[in-house]
């Protein structure tokens, strides 16, 4: 029976096994997720550098100002310094997002038919039990915490 060329041309795509196609899709998704993790690490580093730079200049100003100037500017400089804590909070949020992505990658890898090296979650079980920075309105503020501590 003569073979029809038209059908032959479509065959390679039609006969790619489903598992292999899934594997390619998952590999592409994992590549994107790993890239996102790298971006998050870069954000964390940038925030750290920025906080360090602002803090260094605030410290310099505080040290170089004479007594009168220091008294006038002290409050503002202390506010600048404490605001540098944003780096810590950004870092904690980024770590949480990275842990979630690690989990997604691990789940994707587990669903692929090919054996792939397991991805270790970024956070320990103990650390992941902590919530980290909450969301405005959804977590306790300082006054609420003070009230809890004040209760006998």
């Amino acid at each position, binding site marked *: 029976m003569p073979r029809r060329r038209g059908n032959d041309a479509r065959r390679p795509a039609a006969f790619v096994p489903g598992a292999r196609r899934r594997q390619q899709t998952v590999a592409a998704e994992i590549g994107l997720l790993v890239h996102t993790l790298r971006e998050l690490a870069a954000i964390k580093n940038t925030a750290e550098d920025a906080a360090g730079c602002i803090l260094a200049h605030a410290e310099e100003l505080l040290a170089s100002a004479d007594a009168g100037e220091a008294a006038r500017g002290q409050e503002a400089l202390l506010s600048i310094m404490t605001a540098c804590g944003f780096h810590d909070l950004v870092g904690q949020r980024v770590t949480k997002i990275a842990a979630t992505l690690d989990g997604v990658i691990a789940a994707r890898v587990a669903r692929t038919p090919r054996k792939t090296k397991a991805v270790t979650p970024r956070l320990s079980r103990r650390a992941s039990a902590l919530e980290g920075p909450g969301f405005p309105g959804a977590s*306790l503020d300082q006054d609420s915490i003070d009230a809890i501590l004040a209760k006998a």
Partner: protein
Amino acid sequence: MAVDLGMRVLVVDDYKTMIRIIRNLLKQLGFVNVDEASDGSAALNMMRSKDYGLVISDWNMEPMTGYELLREVRADDTLSRTPFIMVTAESKTDNVIAAKKAGVNNYIVKPFNAATLKSKIEAIFGEQSR
């Protein structure tokens, strides 16, 4: 402030920037002897070799968290009376209650300002002098 400004203060945090911020705030409040540690176990070793009048600790650190440090400190006969302030982003009610039960003297949620730190330190030493 009824506080001995010459006392040794230990700041425990795994973020160097945060240690630097707290160190600067303490300096502005007049504290001159400030040491630092990057996690609970390092802090505990330091506390067993030096006398600290106040510990200001983050919660979420590895390998030993600030909460574990607090429990170790309160369980140690020599260290148990050391004033302990938790400075953390953890604002879940359960965590605040757990810290309170473990014996924390005060709890500051991040982000915080200089006035909050000052008032919490004053509150502890005000209570102690009464």
